[in-house]
């Protein structure tokens, strides 16, 4: 058939990766060409902050992202503190109140977004590069980063909206399951802290708490900045200098503790009046820079990370029609993020689906992927490499991640080679060492007493 003849093209394309590394001594600067099609990652330091930059001149726009090591892992005994601090950055800054700040961005068509994750506090800006407009956007972002006022009235309002969001979580079986899963998986570890906090913890957070959190973690030595767009290197330097230059130097946040292993299997069942049961099964997974990263990545691609054709999807959906969505993933963080398998199915099928997922995992750990499976997964991953970097948005996310986690600058350049090198034996070995099917956290949320087939 004609199609089969086209397949060898896969290997042709990935060979065209030209590699050269320039190391410029001055200013600790490095330039890293990634692909034949001219994506160069450049990096340097300013005031303790690492700058990651890619020149993308095609569209008259620029994306800027500043990431602090100030996610919910830093909440301490006040769950929700990191999220609330991140949320409050643009609720009054410098001489501008919230209305003036949002007006300044909106009036030049700029988009500011913020995100609080377990490791990261993220502030991102997308703006046109038209000179006057970009200046307004950057001046405003600089003020938000450097002079947030943490207005007391705005704090009360944001707390109130978090209370509503917390209630919203309690009506969503997926959210209920996820909260229970993280709590059981991480116990006393900082990653257990729920990002929105709890009603009680949020109520206890004061303006002084936010100021102290900001002072400690929103500092130059605890930040990276990533820039992608139609700004030349001189402009990129100026942007970095303007945004992070005036920040306090401060200290890099200390590394959080390692994630302790699970000692035993834990099963949590929560009653919820839904027609489906949400099932999550997981285990501590891997971390950024993990030596097993590629073996687990390629292995999971076969197991449940690639949608149709992956084993979990095949067993749960394609063979039996038990669920719409069923998957597995690793979510690597600074420390071990979760390895997670999940699905939702009609209540009366929940036990059957759970058994299938567990059996699929157990068999995969014992046997690893087949020759065919690993070959197909590698073809998909390496052949699809250009898709990972086909927009400024994607490039920004990659270089910010590389900068934040101190991954080697040639991470993307070597990505396909690292994938190609993975063997079946390595996958089996990595899964056997890393995932213990007898010590998993299992969460089930649904109408657990309902065993009658629904119509």
């Amino acid at each position: 058939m004609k199609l089969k003849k086209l397949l060898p093209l896969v290997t042709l394309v990935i060979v065209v990766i030209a590699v050269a590394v320039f190391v410029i001594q001055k200013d600790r600067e490095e330039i890293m060409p990634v692909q034949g099609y001219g994506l160069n990652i450049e990096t340097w330091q300013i005031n303790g902050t690492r700058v990651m930059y890619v020149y993308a001149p095609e569209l008259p726009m620029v994306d800027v992202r500043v990431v602090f090591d100030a996610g919910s892992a830093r909440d301490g005994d006040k769950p929700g503190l990191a999220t609330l601090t991140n949320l409050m950055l643009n609720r009054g800054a410098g001489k501008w109140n919230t209305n003036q700040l949002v007006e300044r961005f909106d009036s030049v068509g700029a988009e500011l977004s913020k995100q609080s994750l377990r490791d990261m506090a993220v502030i991102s800006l997308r703006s046109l590069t038209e000179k006057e407009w970009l200046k307004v956007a950057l001046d405003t972002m600089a003020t938000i980063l450097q002079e947030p006022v943490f207005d007391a009235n705005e704090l009360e309002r944001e707390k109130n909206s978090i209370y509503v969001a917390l209630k919203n979580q309690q009506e969503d079986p997926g959210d209920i399951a996820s909260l229970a899963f993280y709590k059981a998986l991480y116990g006393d570890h900082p990653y257990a802290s729920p990002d929105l906090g709890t009603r009680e913890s949020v109520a206890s957070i004061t303006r002084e708490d936010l100021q102290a959190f900001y002072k400690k973690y929103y500092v130059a030595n605890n930040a990276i900045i990533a820039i992608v767009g139609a700004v030349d290197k001189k402009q990129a330097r100026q942007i970095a200098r303007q945004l992070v230059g005036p920040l306090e130097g401060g200290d890099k946040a200390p590394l959080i503790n390692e994630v302790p292993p699970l000692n035993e299997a834990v099963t949590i069942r929560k009653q919820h009046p839904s027609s489906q049961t949400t099932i999550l099964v997981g285990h501590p997974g891997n971390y950024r820079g993990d030596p097993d990263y590629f073996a687990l990545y390629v292995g999971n691609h076969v197991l449940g990370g690639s949608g149709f054709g992956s084993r979990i999807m095949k067993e749960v959906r394609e063979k039996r029609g038990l669920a719409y969505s069923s998957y597995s993933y690793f979510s690597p963080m600074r420390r071990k993020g979760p390895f997670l398998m999940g699905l939702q199915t009609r209540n009366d099928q929940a036990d059957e689906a759970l058994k299938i997922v567990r059996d699929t995992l157990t068999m995969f750990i014992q046997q690893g992927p087949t020759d065919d499976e690993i070959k197909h997964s590698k073809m998909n991953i390496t052949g699809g490499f250009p898709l990972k970097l086909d927009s400024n948005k994607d490039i920004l996310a990659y270089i910010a991640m590389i900068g934040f986690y101190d991954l080697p600058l040639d991470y993307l350049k070597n990505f396909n080679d690292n994938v190609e090198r993975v063997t079946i034996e390595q996958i089996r070995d990595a899964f056997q060492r890393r995932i213990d099917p007898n010590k998993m956290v299992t969460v089930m949320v649904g109408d657990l007493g309902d065993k009658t087939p629904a119509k």
Partner: protein
Amino acid sequence: MRKFFLFLLLLPACTVTASTVYEYKLDNGMKLLVKQDHRAPVVVSQVWYKVGASYEHSGITGVSHVLEHMMFKGTKNFGPGEFSEVIAANGGRENAFTSRDYTAYFQILEKSRLPVSFEMEADRMRNLLLSEKEFKKEVEVVKEERRTRTEDNPRSLTYEKFNATAFTNSPYQNPTIGWMNDLNNMTLNDLANWYRKWYAPNNATLVVVGDVEPDDVYLLAQEHFGGLPVIEIPELKPRMEAAQTGPRRISVRAPAEVPYLIMGYKTPVLNTASEDWEPYALEVLAGILDSGGSARFSRELVREQQIAVDASVSYSMFDRQANLLMISGTPATGRTVEELEQAIHKQIERLKNEKVAAAELERIKAQVIAGDVYEKDSVFYQAMALGVLETVGLGWQKIDEYVERVKSVTAEQIQQVARKYLVENTMTVAVLEPQKINRKKASGQSAAAQH
């Protein structure tokens, strides 16, 4: 208004010249649209069919979407799931989506793999094998999808009931995923009929955006799709919504924690507007209320009056049939849905009584200019925009007018459409009334391994 215009002229660097769309037509009536984007060696290919939930009649709702699922279940030449396997082996991503007005199938690939996509899309356009065995499983998958998306999501459930109330005879009254009753009673024959009726080159548009040469794409399309036969596409009878003669209100009681409000007003779309500036005026009106943190809803309802934790407006001028301008919101802690609704009514009255400020119009204009550039960061979005416009019958060229038409909307026009369309007689309101969630049964935790 003069100042408004001068401001515009000061922005030379911001307008990206609309990149050319190459339009071709195959002999069998299939349309091909190609747009170049050479930023990365990637191509997106989408096949758009003029069929969707709004083409369905009572009793078979959801058939377009179930058929979309079955399109991955094989042909004479490829086994079930093989389409996905081949695309995956070629490094591609693929999926499909069904809406009220269209069904579309897409692949994103490294550019040299485009022939793989064309060969298989052409094949399943006419050669689908509909097997009873695969159908039985797949319709269960769709029911699970419905449970996840709608049954167990109180807000989606409210939205579904809202549409069923707002529309009397327009097909937009039905959910795209279909009513559970209809899914329970769907047969393979329903799908076979639907497939035979609508899946043909003369009812499809192929959209390709990426690092490609248009003429090469045309030759490739000719090679793979050119031999497909023309079929007679049935005429779609008009099902224009009967005039609404008074406000409609419903409550939706479901296990939930937070109340929720949806309001809608009957509004025209580009396809149905008697005055073609009206949809653009409605678009800007929606932006005055809700586009960015400085829009009226965020500023006044969320931050100043603290009546809502969120409030948003949606309006789509590119639908095939007349639709709604919809407002939805969540009351803040200690505030009620009634208070929120009253505050929204005040906002609407103000649009009718006062002209919007020049600064507000300038903001929208800046956002539209910027949005036009930002959208070009995604090849998928660029293809999607062309596909939608072509498939709802407006023609892709409408995309080139969008920025200028939005920019030319005046304060007077916004006031006019507010007075004409945001009126009580065509209003529908749905309120989610949370019912206590019973979490008592069977909850527990055990430390024993279960198998």
